[in-house]
Protein backbone atom coordinates (compact mmCIF):
# COMPACT_ATOMS: atom_id res chain seq x y z
CA UNK A 1 0.00 0.00 0.00
CA UNK A 2 2.99 2.36 0.39
CA UNK A 3 3.37 2.67 -3.40
CA UNK A 4 -0.20 4.00 -3.48
CA UNK A 5 0.48 6.70 -0.87
CA UNK A 6 3.76 7.69 -2.53
CA UNK A 7 1.84 8.05 -5.81
CA UNK A 8 -0.98 10.02 -4.18
CA UNK A 9 1.36 12.52 -2.51
CA UNK A 10 3.69 12.73 -5.52
CA UNK A 11 0.84 13.36 -7.97
CA UNK A 12 -0.72 15.96 -5.68
CA UNK A 13 2.53 17.93 -5.40
CA UNK A 14 3.31 17.63 -9.12
CA UNK A 15 -0.19 18.63 -10.17
CA UNK A 16 -0.27 21.66 -7.85
CA UNK A 17 3.20 22.72 -9.05
CA UNK A 18 2.16 22.51 -12.72
CA UNK A 19 -0.89 24.67 -12.06
CA UNK A 20 1.10 27.18 -9.98
CA UNK A 21 3.91 27.62 -12.52
CA UNK A 22 2.10 29.87 -15.01
CA UNK A 23 0.67 32.27 -12.40
CA UNK A 24 4.05 32.45 -10.60
CA UNK A 25 6.11 33.06 -13.76
CA UNK A 26 3.78 35.51 -15.42
CA UNK A 27 2.46 37.22 -12.31
CA UNK A 28 0.18 40.13 -13.07
CA UNK A 29 2.09 41.23 -16.15
CA UNK A 30 0.24 41.76 -19.40
CA UNK A 31 1.44 39.19 -21.92
CA UNK A 32 2.90 40.53 -25.18
CA UNK A 33 0.57 40.63 -28.20
CA UNK A 34 2.58 37.82 -29.73
CA UNK A 35 1.75 35.51 -26.82
CA UNK A 36 -1.88 36.58 -26.84
CA UNK A 37 -2.18 35.65 -30.51
CA UNK A 38 -1.10 32.11 -29.59
CA UNK A 39 -3.22 31.89 -26.45
CA UNK A 40 -6.30 32.97 -28.41
CA UNK A 41 -5.99 29.74 -30.40
CA UNK A 42 -5.10 27.56 -27.40
CA UNK A 43 -8.75 26.94 -26.43
CA UNK A 44 -9.90 25.60 -29.83
CA UNK A 45 -6.70 23.50 -30.17
CA UNK A 46 -7.00 22.04 -26.67
CA UNK A 47 -10.74 21.37 -26.92
CA UNK A 48 -10.26 19.64 -30.28
CA UNK A 49 -7.50 17.46 -28.85
CA UNK A 50 -9.67 16.52 -25.85
CA UNK A 51 -12.65 15.66 -28.08
CA UNK A 52 -10.48 13.53 -30.40
CA UNK A 53 -8.58 11.66 -27.68
CA UNK A 54 -11.67 11.04 -25.51
CA UNK A 55 -13.75 9.93 -28.50
CA UNK A 56 -11.28 7.79 -30.46
CA UNK A 57 -8.45 7.03 -28.04
CA UNK A 58 -8.27 3.89 -25.92
CA UNK A 59 -5.10 2.55 -24.31
CA UNK A 60 -2.88 4.11 -26.95
CA UNK A 61 -5.01 2.94 -29.88
CA UNK A 62 -7.48 4.65 -32.16
CA UNK A 63 -10.87 2.93 -32.05
CA UNK A 64 -14.16 3.64 -33.76
CA UNK A 65 -16.91 2.57 -31.36
CA UNK A 66 -20.18 3.63 -29.77
CA UNK A 67 -18.50 6.74 -28.32
CA UNK A 68 -17.83 8.16 -31.79
CA UNK A 69 -21.49 7.71 -32.77
CA UNK A 70 -22.63 9.35 -29.53
CA UNK A 71 -20.35 12.37 -29.90
CA UNK A 72 -21.32 12.57 -33.60
CA UNK A 73 -24.99 12.74 -32.62
CA UNK A 74 -24.17 15.53 -30.16
CA UNK A 75 -22.33 17.48 -32.85
CA UNK A 76 -25.26 17.07 -35.24
CA UNK A 77 -27.76 18.20 -32.59
CA UNK A 78 -25.59 21.23 -31.78
CA UNK A 79 -25.30 22.10 -35.48
CA UNK A 80 -29.11 22.20 -35.52
CA UNK A 81 -29.00 24.61 -32.57
CA UNK A 82 -30.15 22.11 -29.94
CA UNK A 83 -29.47 23.19 -26.32
CA UNK A 84 -26.16 21.85 -24.97
CA UNK A 85 -27.78 19.67 -22.29
CA UNK A 86 -30.09 18.02 -24.83
CA UNK A 87 -27.14 17.31 -27.13
CA UNK A 88 -25.17 15.72 -24.29
CA UNK A 89 -28.10 13.58 -23.13
CA UNK A 90 -28.63 12.40 -26.72
CA UNK A 91 -24.93 11.48 -26.91
CA UNK A 92 -25.08 9.39 -23.72
CA UNK A 93 -28.38 7.74 -24.77
CA UNK A 94 -27.06 6.86 -28.22
CA UNK A 95 -23.88 5.36 -26.80
CA UNK A 96 -25.77 3.40 -24.12
CA UNK A 97 -28.29 2.02 -26.65
CA UNK A 98 -25.56 0.99 -29.10
CA UNK A 99 -23.72 -0.82 -26.29
CA UNK A 100 -26.90 -2.52 -25.13
CA UNK A 101 -27.52 -3.98 -28.59
CA UNK A 102 -23.99 -4.91 -29.52
Amino acid sequence: MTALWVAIIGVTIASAAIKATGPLLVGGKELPDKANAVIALLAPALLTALVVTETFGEDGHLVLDARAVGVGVAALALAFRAPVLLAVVLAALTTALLRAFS
Partner: protein
Amino acid sequence: MRNGAGEHGDGYVGGARAALPFALATFALGVSFGVLSRSLGWGVVAPIVFSVITFSGSAQFAVAAVLGGGGGALSAIVAAILLNARFLPMGVAVAPFLKGGPLRRALEGQAVVDASWALASRGGGRFDRDFMIGATLPQVVAWIGGTVIGVFASGVVGDVERLGLDVIFPAFFMALLMEELRGGKVTLAAALIAAALSLVLVPLLPPGVPVIAACAAALLGLREWSS
Protein backbone atom coordinates in the same frame (compact mmCIF):
# COMPACT_ATOMS: atom_id res chain seq x y z
CA MET B 1 -22.30 35.61 -26.32
CA ARG B 2 -19.38 33.26 -25.85
CA ASN B 3 -19.73 29.92 -24.12
CA GLY B 4 -21.69 30.13 -20.87
CA ALA B 5 -21.21 33.84 -20.26
CA GLY B 6 -24.26 36.04 -20.25
CA GLU B 7 -26.70 33.18 -20.38
CA HIS B 8 -25.91 32.34 -16.75
CA GLY B 9 -24.99 35.77 -15.43
CA ASP B 10 -21.54 37.01 -14.52
CA GLY B 11 -19.03 36.48 -11.73
CA TYR B 12 -18.70 33.51 -9.37
CA VAL B 13 -22.41 32.64 -9.40
CA GLY B 14 -22.61 32.82 -13.20
CA GLY B 15 -19.59 30.52 -13.46
CA ALA B 16 -21.06 28.06 -10.96
CA ARG B 17 -24.35 27.95 -12.89
CA ALA B 18 -22.61 27.48 -16.22
CA ALA B 19 -20.61 24.59 -14.74
CA LEU B 20 -23.57 22.67 -13.28
CA PRO B 21 -23.97 20.33 -16.29
CA PHE B 22 -20.23 19.65 -16.14
CA ALA B 23 -20.53 18.99 -12.42
CA LEU B 24 -23.04 16.24 -13.22
CA ALA B 25 -20.55 14.61 -15.56
CA THR B 26 -17.78 15.07 -12.97
CA PHE B 27 -20.02 13.41 -10.38
CA ALA B 28 -20.56 10.35 -12.61
CA LEU B 29 -16.81 10.18 -13.20
CA GLY B 30 -16.12 10.52 -9.46
CA VAL B 31 -18.45 7.60 -8.76
CA SER B 32 -16.65 5.45 -11.31
CA PHE B 33 -13.28 6.45 -9.82
CA GLY B 34 -14.52 5.40 -6.36
CA VAL B 35 -15.80 2.06 -7.68
CA LEU B 36 -12.58 1.46 -9.62
CA SER B 37 -10.30 2.19 -6.66
CA ARG B 38 -12.28 -0.15 -4.41
CA SER B 39 -11.89 -2.89 -7.02
CA LEU B 40 -8.11 -2.28 -6.90
CA GLY B 41 -8.09 -2.82 -3.15
CA TRP B 42 -7.31 0.78 -2.19
CA GLY B 43 -9.73 0.70 0.72
CA VAL B 44 -11.96 3.62 1.69
CA VAL B 45 -9.61 6.33 2.97
CA ALA B 46 -6.98 6.51 0.20
CA PRO B 47 -9.32 7.18 -2.77
CA ILE B 48 -11.22 9.87 -0.85
CA VAL B 49 -8.03 11.59 0.37
CA PHE B 50 -6.71 11.36 -3.21
CA SER B 51 -9.80 13.13 -4.61
CA VAL B 52 -9.75 15.80 -1.90
CA ILE B 53 -6.09 16.78 -2.18
CA THR B 54 -5.47 16.20 -5.90
CA PHE B 55 -8.83 16.96 -7.53
CA SER B 56 -7.75 15.81 -10.96
CA GLY B 57 -9.80 13.16 -12.74
CA SER B 58 -7.34 12.46 -15.52
CA ALA B 59 -4.33 12.16 -13.19
CA GLN B 60 -6.19 9.96 -10.70
CA PHE B 61 -7.46 7.58 -13.37
CA ALA B 62 -3.91 7.41 -14.75
CA VAL B 63 -2.56 6.41 -11.31
CA ALA B 64 -5.28 3.75 -11.04
CA ALA B 65 -4.40 2.43 -14.50
CA VAL B 66 -0.64 2.27 -13.83
CA LEU B 67 -0.78 0.83 -10.31
CA GLY B 68 -3.65 -1.49 -11.28
CA GLY B 69 -1.56 -2.73 -14.18
CA GLY B 70 1.31 -3.63 -11.87
CA GLY B 71 3.38 -0.46 -12.38
CA GLY B 72 5.26 1.38 -9.62
CA ALA B 73 4.67 4.73 -7.92
CA LEU B 74 7.21 6.53 -10.12
CA SER B 75 5.57 5.40 -13.38
CA ALA B 76 2.21 6.45 -11.97
CA ILE B 77 3.52 9.92 -11.10
CA VAL B 78 5.14 10.35 -14.53
CA ALA B 79 1.90 9.32 -16.27
CA ALA B 80 -0.06 11.83 -14.20
CA ILE B 81 2.45 14.61 -14.95
CA LEU B 82 2.22 13.92 -18.70
CA LEU B 83 -1.57 14.04 -18.52
CA ASN B 84 -1.64 17.26 -16.52
CA ALA B 85 1.14 19.08 -18.38
CA ARG B 86 -1.57 20.82 -20.44
CA PHE B 87 -2.36 22.90 -17.33
CA LEU B 88 0.99 24.65 -17.76
CA PRO B 89 0.11 26.64 -20.92
CA MET B 90 -3.47 27.02 -19.61
CA GLY B 91 -2.06 28.53 -16.38
CA VAL B 92 0.14 30.94 -18.35
CA ALA B 93 -2.96 32.03 -20.31
CA VAL B 94 -5.05 32.92 -17.23
CA ALA B 95 -2.12 34.30 -15.17
CA PRO B 96 -2.56 38.01 -16.09
CA PHE B 97 -6.18 37.91 -14.87
CA LEU B 98 -5.57 36.41 -11.41
CA LYS B 99 -5.36 38.58 -8.29
CA GLY B 100 -2.98 39.23 -5.40
CA GLY B 101 0.63 38.34 -4.63
CA PRO B 102 2.55 35.24 -5.77
CA LEU B 103 1.09 32.88 -3.17
CA ARG B 104 -2.50 33.89 -3.85
CA ARG B 105 -1.95 33.69 -7.61
CA ALA B 106 -0.48 30.20 -7.26
CA LEU B 107 -3.55 29.22 -5.22
CA GLU B 108 -6.00 30.75 -7.68
CA GLY B 109 -4.19 28.89 -10.46
CA GLN B 110 -5.35 25.63 -8.84
CA ALA B 111 -8.86 26.46 -10.10
CA VAL B 112 -7.73 25.74 -13.66
CA VAL B 113 -9.58 22.65 -14.90
CA ASP B 114 -10.53 21.95 -18.52
CA ALA B 115 -14.21 22.89 -18.40
CA SER B 116 -13.81 26.00 -16.19
CA TRP B 117 -10.89 27.28 -18.23
CA ALA B 118 -12.80 26.90 -21.50
CA LEU B 119 -15.99 28.41 -20.01
CA ALA B 120 -14.03 31.43 -18.75
CA SER B 121 -12.33 32.04 -22.11
CA ARG B 122 -13.55 35.34 -23.52
CA GLY B 123 -11.70 35.24 -26.83
CA GLY B 124 -8.58 37.08 -27.95
CA GLY B 125 -6.63 35.50 -25.06
CA ARG B 126 -8.77 37.11 -22.33
CA PHE B 127 -10.18 35.19 -19.34
CA ASP B 128 -12.81 35.88 -16.67
CA ARG B 129 -11.16 35.01 -13.34
CA ASP B 130 -14.34 35.09 -11.18
CA PHE B 131 -16.24 33.01 -13.72
CA MET B 132 -13.48 30.37 -13.78
CA ILE B 133 -13.22 30.03 -9.99
CA GLY B 134 -17.03 29.93 -9.69
CA ALA B 135 -17.15 27.21 -12.34
CA THR B 136 -14.59 25.04 -10.56
CA LEU B 137 -16.34 24.99 -7.16
CA PRO B 138 -19.35 22.78 -8.10
CA GLN B 139 -16.99 20.43 -9.93
CA VAL B 140 -14.81 20.04 -6.82
CA VAL B 141 -17.88 19.20 -4.73
CA ALA B 142 -19.15 16.78 -7.39
CA TRP B 143 -15.77 15.04 -7.78
CA ILE B 144 -15.28 14.48 -4.06
CA GLY B 145 -18.96 13.60 -3.48
CA GLY B 146 -18.92 11.18 -6.40
CA THR B 147 -15.75 9.49 -5.11
CA VAL B 148 -17.28 9.04 -1.63
CA ILE B 149 -20.46 7.51 -3.05
CA GLY B 150 -18.50 5.29 -5.45
CA VAL B 151 -16.26 4.03 -2.67
CA PHE B 152 -19.12 3.15 -0.30
CA ALA B 153 -21.63 1.95 -2.89
CA SER B 154 -19.20 0.10 -5.14
CA GLY B 155 -21.36 -3.01 -4.94
CA VAL B 156 -24.58 -1.21 -5.85
CA VAL B 157 -23.43 1.14 -8.62
CA GLY B 158 -23.47 -0.45 -12.03
CA ASP B 159 -21.08 0.05 -14.89
CA VAL B 160 -20.85 3.76 -15.73
CA GLU B 161 -19.91 2.86 -19.31
CA ARG B 162 -23.09 0.85 -19.84
CA LEU B 163 -25.05 4.06 -19.26
CA GLY B 164 -22.98 5.88 -21.88
CA LEU B 165 -21.77 8.37 -19.26
CA ASP B 166 -18.20 8.26 -20.56
CA VAL B 167 -19.23 10.29 -23.63
CA ILE B 168 -20.55 13.14 -21.51
CA PHE B 169 -17.17 14.88 -21.39
CA PRO B 170 -16.25 14.66 -25.09
CA ALA B 171 -19.81 15.76 -25.94
CA PHE B 172 -19.52 18.80 -23.63
CA PHE B 173 -16.10 19.67 -25.03
CA MET B 174 -17.61 19.39 -28.50
CA ALA B 175 -20.24 21.97 -27.49
CA LEU B 176 -17.57 24.39 -26.18
CA LEU B 177 -15.49 23.79 -29.30
CA MET B 178 -18.37 24.63 -31.63
CA GLU B 179 -18.78 27.95 -29.79
CA GLU B 180 -15.06 28.64 -30.28
CA LEU B 181 -15.24 27.79 -33.97
CA ARG B 182 -17.43 30.81 -34.60
CA GLY B 183 -14.18 32.75 -34.14
CA GLY B 184 -13.38 32.47 -37.86
CA LYS B 185 -11.06 30.77 -40.30
CA VAL B 186 -7.86 30.84 -38.23
CA THR B 187 -9.68 29.21 -35.32
CA LEU B 188 -10.98 26.49 -37.63
CA ALA B 189 -7.50 25.96 -39.09
CA ALA B 190 -5.98 25.61 -35.60
CA ALA B 191 -8.69 23.10 -34.66
CA LEU B 192 -8.11 21.02 -37.80
CA ILE B 193 -4.34 20.92 -37.19
CA ALA B 194 -4.95 19.93 -33.55
CA ALA B 195 -7.33 17.15 -34.69
CA ALA B 196 -4.79 15.81 -37.19
CA LEU B 197 -1.95 15.95 -34.63
CA SER B 198 -3.96 14.09 -31.97
CA LEU B 199 -5.13 11.41 -34.41
CA VAL B 200 -1.59 10.76 -35.62
CA LEU B 201 -0.01 10.86 -32.16
CA VAL B 202 -2.49 8.83 -30.07
CA PRO B 203 -1.06 5.47 -31.27
CA LEU B 204 2.55 6.70 -30.95
CA LEU B 205 2.83 8.50 -27.61
CA PRO B 206 1.71 7.80 -24.02
CA PRO B 207 -1.75 9.15 -23.04
CA GLY B 208 -1.76 12.89 -22.36
CA VAL B 209 1.20 13.72 -24.60
CA PRO B 210 -0.87 13.92 -27.84
CA VAL B 211 -3.10 16.55 -26.17
CA ILE B 212 -0.10 18.71 -25.26
CA ALA B 213 1.48 18.25 -28.70
CA ALA B 214 -1.82 19.23 -30.35
CA CYS B 215 -1.71 22.52 -28.44
CA ALA B 216 1.18 23.42 -30.76
CA ALA B 217 -1.55 24.14 -33.34
CA ALA B 218 -2.09 27.41 -31.44
CA LEU B 219 1.30 28.57 -32.75
CA LEU B 220 -0.63 29.35 -35.91
CA GLY B 221 -1.42 32.57 -34.04
CA LEU B 222 2.17 33.71 -34.62
CA ARG B 223 1.53 33.84 -38.37
CA GLU B 224 -1.58 35.91 -37.83
CA TRP B 225 0.31 38.24 -35.53
CA SER B 226 3.18 38.81 -37.96
CA SER B 227 0.91 39.38 -40.96
